[in-house]
């Protein structure tokens, strides 16, 4: 039986896992990655929740394996359009294939759109992505902040920025970063401002408990409504402490916005060119949410990773395996 070509759009953890699994099953995967490097967003993360392992422990073995397996990788390539038998790249190249796995992930919400939080206006307002990068690069401020506020649900569950969905991983990221901050600055007070705490994964609730119990992280049920600068360079934030029913204000030296995942702008173009369906959130709509959650509405086009919805890294890696199996299954049926 000849090896069948499967084009994988996106070389993040989802794409690499899919490729590796396909190769293991004897197929010929081709990865197309927009960036100059494989690894996607996970490469930028510092330690991963809930076990605090370095993100490199997840990404690097995958990258190594892709190299070792000699999987064909196109870097710095953007896909213009595709259908289940052909993928067209920005440089004009066309790749004929037997199936396509769309693993192009999602986009981080631009915190500047929530202007009232002052991101990009005041120096000490950061996004969770900034913090990951600063932690990884060891660029966190030397001087311990007196107080840090971490705001959940920035660009998630918010009609005002047209992002109605829950980004799922921000809550646990907020807890993780709170612990990291407490480890780094034991004297700092860390406050998490949340609307609902959603601890859906294994070990998450325990980590939440640890943050409260062992690290004395404060959790305030209320969403910050405004941030404004103070004379001394601190940020004054306003929220309602909804559990006491009173407005709360405090000055913080650092405000961290837990930015959510939103659908890629590309999705619309892809959906149009390949005849796929979008969910209301702008993410791709899977064939169904049970047995067909890696299949699209079109034959031969599959999904893995956060292209369909926000997911944790573990879930994404599982999907990579599942999608490869589904693709092989499909290809076998095609050949009868």
């Amino acid at each position, binding site marked *: 039986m000849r090896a069948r070509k499967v084009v994988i759009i996106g070389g993040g953890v989802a794409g690499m896992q899919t490729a590796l699994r396909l190769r293991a099953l004897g197929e010929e995967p081709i990865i197309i990655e927009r960036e100059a490097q494989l690894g996607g967003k996970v490469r930028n993360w510092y330690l991963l929740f809930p076990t605090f392992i370095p993100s490199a422990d997840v990404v690097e073995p995958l990258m190594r394996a892709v190299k070792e397996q000699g999987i064909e990788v196109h870097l710095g390539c953007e896909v213009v359009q595709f259908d289940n038998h052909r993928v067209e790249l920005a440089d004009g190249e066309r790749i004929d294939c037997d199936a396509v796995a769309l693993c192009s992930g999602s986009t981080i919400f631009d915190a500047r759109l929530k202007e009232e939080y002052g991101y990009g206006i005041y120096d000490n307002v950061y996004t969770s992505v900034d913090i990951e990068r600063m932690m990884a690069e060891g660029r966190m401020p030397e001087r311990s902040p007196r107080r840090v506020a971490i705001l959940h649900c920035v660009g998630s*569950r918010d009609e005002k920025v047209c992002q109605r969905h829950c980004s799922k991983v921000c809550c646990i990221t907020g807890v993780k970063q709170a612990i990291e901050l407490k480890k780094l600055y034991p004297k700092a007070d860390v406050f998490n401002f949340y*609307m609902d705490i959603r601890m859906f994964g294994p070990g998450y609730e325990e980590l939440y408990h640890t943050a409260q119990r062992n690290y004395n992280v404060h959790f305030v049920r*209320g969403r910050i*409504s405004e941030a404004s600068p103070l004379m001394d360079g601190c940020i004054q934030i306003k929220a309602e*402490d909804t559990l006491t*029913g009173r407005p709360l204000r405090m000055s913080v030296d650092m405000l961290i916005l837990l930015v959510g995942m939103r659908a890629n702008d590309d999705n619309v173009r892809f959906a149009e060119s390949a005849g796929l369906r979008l969910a209301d959130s702008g993410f791709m709509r899977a064939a169904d949410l049970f047995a067909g959650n890696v299949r699209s509405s079109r034959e031969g086009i599959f999904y893995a990773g956060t292209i369909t919805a926000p997911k944790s890294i573990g879930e994404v890696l599982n999907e990579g395996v599942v999608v490869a199996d589904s693709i092989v299954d499909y290809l076998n049926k095609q050949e009868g």
Partner: protein
Amino acid sequence: MASVNFGFGISKPRVIDIDRNNLRKSDEILLEMPELQTCIGCGSCTASCTAGNLTSFNFRKVHALVRRGEYAGAYEEMNKCMLCGKCRLLCPRGINTRGVVMLIKRKLGDF
């Protein structure tokens, strides 16, 4: 029945007694503005509130009480609102908060 004064009154229960509360107005309010049910109580409205900055006015609490049929005082409380509309710009559920204020005032003020 004569009401005798013993020098003290009988304390009214603090409980929100849904069985006893008359939910008619609450139902009417929710019928006109069903989106009010989508409030997740994040408190953005109250935190940014221009009036809440100067008084004890708590929009989230007042409308929550009204929804439970606790109308006492809600009308006058809503009259602390300046209708400036900051809350409407912030509500993550897109609730028409100014409309809620006006609706509650209309329903509870009987006009």
